[in-house]
């Protein structure tokens, strides 16, 4: 099969295209030379220099704080939205609701940022809040678009769940919220973790929204990096960028790891259940196993 080989080649070439620039960036962050394009031997002095940069460290702490709040709020809101999308099939206004959940995924950031800022300004005039823009307004902006990502991730998981467990609990007299807390939440926990980490990473990365809705004195890390990058490539920025890459890769890896472990556990459980069932009396048709993707 000829185009099978061609596509495999494209895949590896594409991955090289995606990762080579980042790899080069990381390698050059260890460059001892002040000139970013000349290799002057290995050194970690740019990393050491970062710790003395008080302004940058302040921005880092602020970004981490916002990212934490964002992750928590986005998981709560996103899970609620995902629950609505998967478990409440019909109500008036559902189309609008679905649109509001998915639109932030594609909406250009300059539009969202500008509109949120104008909202905050209008609110400050009307009800006197927010008096000054800062961590809270950035948190609101980030939560809004991260919740959409969480909703997509979690609703994919909620759809796969076997509804019969929840129905059994309801039949036994459990209240809906109890079913949700004791049965649904533990079963979707891995995707909640994945969604939370995704929100953390997205919030840590955002430049445009934060630039619009932040006030004086509340610069975040990407804003700090951007104002330096505008002036050109610098070794210190290489070091900061590499550290951000490292943090994001760790988060991605853990999110992937949790999702994968949960998937394996689930498969094992299904397998055990099926074995137990075929051993004993099978009183109902077995659930159709998920068809494995075809091998080329």
């Amino acid at each position: 099969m000829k185009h099978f080989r061609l596509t495999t080649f494209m895949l590896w070439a594409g991955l090289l295209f995606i990762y080579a620039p980042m790899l080069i960036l990381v390698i050059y962050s260890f460059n001892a030379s002040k000139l970013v394009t000349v290799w002057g031997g290995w050194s970690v002095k740019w990393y050491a220099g970062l710790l003395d940069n008080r302004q940058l460290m302040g921005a880092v702490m602020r970004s981490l704080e916002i990212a934490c709040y964002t992750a928590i709020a986005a998981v709560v809101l996103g899970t609620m939205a995902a629950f609505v999308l998967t478990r409440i099939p019909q109500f008036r206004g559902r189309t609008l609701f679905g649109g509001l959940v998915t639109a932030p995924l594609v909406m250009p950031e300059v539009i969202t940022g500008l509109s949120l800022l104008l909202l905050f300004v209008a609110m400050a005039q009307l009800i006197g809040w927010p008096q000054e823009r800062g961590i809270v307004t950035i948190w609101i902006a980030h939560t809004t678009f991260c919740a959409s990502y969480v909703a997509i991730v979690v609703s994919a998981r909620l759809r796969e769940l076997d509804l019969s467990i929840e129905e059994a609990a309801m039949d036994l007299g459990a209240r809906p919220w109890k079913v949700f807390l004791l049965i649904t939440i533990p079963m979707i926990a891995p995707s909640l973790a994945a969604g939370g980490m995704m929100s953390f990473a997205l919030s840590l990365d955002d430049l445009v929204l934060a630039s619009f809705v932040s006030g004086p004195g509340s610069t975040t890390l990407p804003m700090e990096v951007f104002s330096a990058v505008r002036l050109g490539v610098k070794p210190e920025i290489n070091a900061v960028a590499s550290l951000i890459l490292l943090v994001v890769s760790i988060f991605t890896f853990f999110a992937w790891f949790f999702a994968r472990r949960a998937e394996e556990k689930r498969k094992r459980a299904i397998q055990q259940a099926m074995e137990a069932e075929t051993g004993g009396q099978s009183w109902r048709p077995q659930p159709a196993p998920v068809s494995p993707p075809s091998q080329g």
Partner: protein
Amino acid sequence: MSKLTNPLNDRGIVVVAAALVIIGAVTLLNLIGPAGTFWQALGLSINQICTLLVVLATVAAVYVGVALLFSRFSHLNPGRAAVVSGPFLWLFLFFLLPFFIVLKISFAEADVAIPPYTEIYSYAEQKLEIILNLGNYLFLTEDELYLAAYLGSLKMAAISTIVCLLIGYPMAYAMARAKKESQTTLLLLIMMPTWTAILIRVYAWMGILSNNGLLNGFLLDIGLIDTPLQILNTNLAVYIGVVYSYLPFMILPLFANLVKHDNSLLEAASDLGSSNLNNFWKITVPLSKNGIIAGSMLVFIPVVGEFVIPELLGGPETLMIGKVLWQEFFNNRDWPVASALAVVMLAILIVPIILFNRNQAKELEGKA
């Protein structure tokens, strides 16, 4: 057995009472006992705590009120209505409502004030006056810069989407046909960049493409060119940056679609004498229509409003609307013109956005 959830059942009353007791105790302790020092250590005065409590109570009251109203409107029971109204309220307040404010301010006039625009309505001497200033929109049509920026953005987005599709489709296809074990790893490799700042990834290209950068150094070394090529600060650099940054967003939905395909269709077609290429065009591509739409929209729509990439990689010839809007807002401080630019951009993008939402809704509900 389904029972309507009464919002104020016995347990609800207990919870509310317990909350009131805790709040009261904290307030009292704060006034007299050593706990006051605890709050002071946190940097909160009694006034701030009281304000906070009032705000929290107001938010809770609004939430309950909206949930009850919504339950009447949507014919859901109060418990479910409460779940719906949480995200609904948030997204309405912080996503939908702001667009109307943008629309309003696009009809205002720029003013030297805080905030820097005039109010569009006034009420004096029993006359309500609403002044819609169309000047901002006329201004957009008068200056050719804006038209060129819109066209530039659309061209950039269209070409990048096609290039992403041409590169991304074979990659997604290869992933979907890879072994199950390697699929999760490949998926991780594609997903990781989408979580990394576009800023960082674009910055990486600045070092590679600049006049004394790695690419020019390499080409000079192997003797292919004599003088450095000017790539950074041209449209070519923006194309490279956009394709590079948005490629994963094209691959992920395509992969999600392709991996679900049933191979027996292809086998049946082959048995009937169809060639591989024919199979691909007649079966695989039509079946992956939804993935192609989702991926293309995930690239096209955000690229139209892209700011970071044209700002860092583009040059004076790069006219894109995201950059122009940013400059109007931050450099010229002309909020009404920036709003008008945003409104027109949204009007251009509304069709693709609705297309994307329909597509997502189908994906979300199709398998329920």
